[in-house]
């Protein structure tokens, strides 16, 4: 058996709780400072042609988050031929510049969705959300019937759009970028306007009837979001 050294620096720290706390804190900050902070100077730049989420797409994104679709779906195509063959071009950092939060996910119970807009269509999504197993036999994706009943929460969409525009400088209303609603009512009009073409490609009569009354259902927004994923 060895003797425990006395008078070592460690013994000193172990007798002084405040020093212990400070030492721990200093040590645990180093990794983050070296690895995380440098990237903040580079990666937030949008790639050319990237547009902010339109009102309806943003509504869909909020529904995606509410339902935690990211529990089963990734939005990150890794640079392997097997992935680019299945899902399309690998993902680039600049494509995520308007993603708050990012939605890469960490488990692919279902397929990646980063470019799903290229190979799935409105009517397919509609059938799939109603009854996943009718379109995909053996799928374990839940059915989402309530998406056909609940209406888009325009207030929260408006709030988020204005926040990212004013606080983070997301370039709404510039060039041919989507518009941000100047008022809540304006955002509602944007949502209704964008919903038209999506609903046209849908089959559900109750969604169409609701739309005729100026009411946009959640499923419409979610599909608009998925269709944008290209």
């Amino acid at each position, binding site marked *: 058996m060895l003797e425990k050294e006395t008078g070592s620096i460690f013994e000193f720290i172990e007798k002084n709780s405040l020093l212990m706390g400070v030492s721990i804190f200093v040590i645990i900050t180093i990794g983050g400072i070296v*690895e*995380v902070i440098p990237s903040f100077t580079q990666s937030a730049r949008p790639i050319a042609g990237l547009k902010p989420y339109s009102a309806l797409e943003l509504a869909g994104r909020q529904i995606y988050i509410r339902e935690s679709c990211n529990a*089963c779906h990734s939005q*990150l195509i890794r640079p392997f031929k097997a992935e680019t063959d299945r899902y399309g071009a690998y993902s680039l950092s600049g494509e995520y510049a308007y*993603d708050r939060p990012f939605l890469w996910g*960490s488990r692919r119970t279902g397929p990646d969705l980063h470019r799903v807009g290229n190979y799935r269509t409105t009517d397919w999504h509609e059938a799939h959300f109603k009854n996943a197993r009718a379109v995909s*036999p053996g799928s374990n994706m839940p059915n989402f019937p309530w998406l056909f009943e609940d209406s888009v*929460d325009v207030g929260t969409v408006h709030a988020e759009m204005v926040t990212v525009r004013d606080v983070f400088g997301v370039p709404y209303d510039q060039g041919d970028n989507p518009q941000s609603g100047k008022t809540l009512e304006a955002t509602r009009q944007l949502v209704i306007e964008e919903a038209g073409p999506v609903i046209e490609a849908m089959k559900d009569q109750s969604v169409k009837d609701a739309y005729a009354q100026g009411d946009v259902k959640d499923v419409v927004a979610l599909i608009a979001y998925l269709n944008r994923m290209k």
Partner: protein
Amino acid sequence: MPTTQSFTEYDYSVAKGFVLSALLWGVVGMSVGLTLAFELIFPELNANLPWLTFNRLRPLHTNAVIFGFTLAGIFASWYYVSQRVLKVRMVLPVLAKAHLVLFNLIIVLAAYTLLAGHSTSKEYHELPWWLDVVIVVMWLMWGGHMFAMLGARKEKTLYVSLWYFMACFLGVGMLFLFNGLAIPTWFVTQTGNWWHSVSMYAGTNDAQVQWWFGHNAVAFVLTVPIIAISYYFIPKQANQPVYSYRLSLWSFWGLIFVYLWAGPHHLIYSTVPDWVQTLGVVFSLILIIPSWGSMVNLLLTMSGKWEQLKTDPIAKLLVIGSTFYGFATLEGPVQAIKSVNAIAHFTDWIVGHVHNGALGWVGFTIMGAIYHMVPRMYNTRLYSVKLAENQFWVQTLGIVFYFTSMWVAGITQGSMWRTTDQFGNLAYSFLDTVRAMVPYWSLRAVGGTLYLAGFIMFIYNIRMTIRNAADFQVDGEQSTSSGSVQAA
């Protein structure tokens, strides 16, 4: 053996409360986990109700087991161990009790918000901003109590367990705060849901902050404080010295330094810079050293104690718990290697790795600690050693089912996604790879059922121990100390 202060001088009221919380949130969280396991095989189980879908239940499971069960186990151990190694009765009991109450309130609110879909989607940080604020308050209550205890201590030198508890407090505090930074949209616009917020970071930056947090949430909730628990309860249960102070020192400082660098292994082949990923991989490998340092130190503390292991299920839980720690900390670094991660990422192999740590290491260690604490806090003896023994075997079998099935499932699915036919075209549709998982998911569900059954046996054993406390008062330390635990 040097005399210790008698238990009567300590105030265990809050530790007892946290033990009960751990039992409650453990059974809730694991039942939800089991529901998830079955929903993957039988998706109709959700009855087409939003609150029962896999997607809403999954974050509830992770939050309930990590922040409900695990944190409650950690706090219970803290309120028990800190008094004994600092040689001071619990200070600020009102603060500590408020901590207990607020903690449980938070978990209830967390369950509600997650089921209602008020999620931020950031893994292990799903709760809405206002609840984050409440959590920070709760955390500071714990930290306040911690430093008050340290200030009042009669034992000058800090025992290893305390180093780890302090690291837990500081680490989680820092990580949670930075990852949670967000702007509540209602305050900007006065419209929409008041609980909604947008992250301060976007895209790749957000991912980096998230996994700097996420990986270290594993470090500072599922590892560091669990080591704290082991460092107290293993030597205590075995009535042996900790194997090596030098190894404790090495492992502790090594662990808390290296852990913070390993986060990018969650982002391999993503859009974060290559050099960051490579550093993450390399530090994940180096992480084996301090991790195995702790495991070896804890296991060698049992040197010469083979006979006790045969008869004492509490020692078994603690020792096998540390062995699973060794397993998970070898498996993790391997999964971090780029070419392995290319297969493992996004698959069930990760889920298997998680549960090696969660069920084997975290679960077993916390249950071992509770088994050790409860008879002492209630001044009685364990209701049934036999039951604990059976529980141990049922749960061990459960874990074996869980990780073997997930291991094979993950590698199979990861490879199927890449498999090509003779022409170099993808050989399987995604759905083919989903259907191929059903046998493995079924085995996992069997494993989960066994583990949960064991947990219910555990709860029953603890409940009966507490209930019989009135009838079986025993003389403090003596009759409940290691090895002599007997069935009532």
